[in-house]
């Protein structure tokens, strides 16, 4: 895992040279997204859906800062225990934070990003989990209409819980409207 992340970081650094060649300018957009959320190595929750809002703001060359909000309903988990099937309520997962996207986050191209946020996991019968979360992912933007771009993202979201974490793989499709320019 660490090797993969190291390679991902290296790839991000190497791609910045390409990104620097892109046009420079201020940009502000607003976007909505939705998709699927898959828990990783978690025996008491199942896959679910997520949706949210993003506000990409490109204020300096190469980097777009993107505040986000997400809301997710993870699936109930069915497990047969002692010969009887039991169901555990899936988490309601909400969170907000900010991503830092390398490249022109509002438009065409590949956009690696990292992020940090505050996420909350709630379910019946358990105390809520409210912890720091980290995101790392890769998006692909496609603009077919002026001011509107579509973004596909694959993301790993990690909510730290003490010495361990709850991890989720997110796949989303979003649309962003460019307010500026």
């Amino acid at each position: 895992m660490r090797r993969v992340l190291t390679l991902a970081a290296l790839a991000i650094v190497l791609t910045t040279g390409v990104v620097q060649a892109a046009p420079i300018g201020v940009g502000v957009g607003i976007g909505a997204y939705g998709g699927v959320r898959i828990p990783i190595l978690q025996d008491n929750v199942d896959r679910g859906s997520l949706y949210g809002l993003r506000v990409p703001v490109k204020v300096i060359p190469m980097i777009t800062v993107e505040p986000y909000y997400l809301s997710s309903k993870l699936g109930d988990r069915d497990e047969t225990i002692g010969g009887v099937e039991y169901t555990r309520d899936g988490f309601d997962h909400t969170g907000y934070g900010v991503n830092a996207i390398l490249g022109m986050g509002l438009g065409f191209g590949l956009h690696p990003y990292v992020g940090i946020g505050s996420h909350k996991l709630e379910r019946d019968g358990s105390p809520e989990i409210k912890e720091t979360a980290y995101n790392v992912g890769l998006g692909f933007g496609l603009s077919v209409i002026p001011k509107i771009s579509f973004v596909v993202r694959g993301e790993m979201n990690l909510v730290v819980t003490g010495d361990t974490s709850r991890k989720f793989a997110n796949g989303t499709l979003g649309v962003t409207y460019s307010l500026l320019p």
Partner: protein
Amino acid sequence: MKNLRWILPSLALMVLAPACILTSGQILIDFDLPSVTAASSTGLIGEQIDLNDNDDYEEHKDKLKDLSDFAVLGTFRNTGLTDVDVEVYVTRDLTTLNTATAVRAGGTKLWGPLHVPAGESVTIDWDGSAALFTSAGKAVLLQEAKGDGNFTLYALGAAGTYQFDIDNGVLALIIDVGM
């Protein structure tokens, strides 16, 4: 490239984060409990649990960090004439206590109360059961799970006289482990 000065530390944080945060998981382990008949506050029979009997626990116990979810599952049948509030206590070792007084004095309340009306049966679900765990009981279970893995469970009524059975009893634990 100056703009990378703040982003690279973030990347480094992700890369250099403790390995167990990145590679941890939540794993279900469960233990069948024998059918229990609790007929009074005396003559109790505890269920001695050795977590080492579970292959998943045995595999991950060295990397166990926390317990993230619990449930005592099964069907509770009140065969007495009055309502009963069922509680489960835990002692840290393999014990053979046989009175409610001794269990309350020497153990820690782990779970409950589950109200079972006279003459009726209640099959507890996972969500409902998870809500009945006590924080003190969780602490004991976590210590035992990180220790020798041995403890004893006792089911008893919260007060008065009672008579109940537990069928298809299971203790289910979700353990947080590093990989």
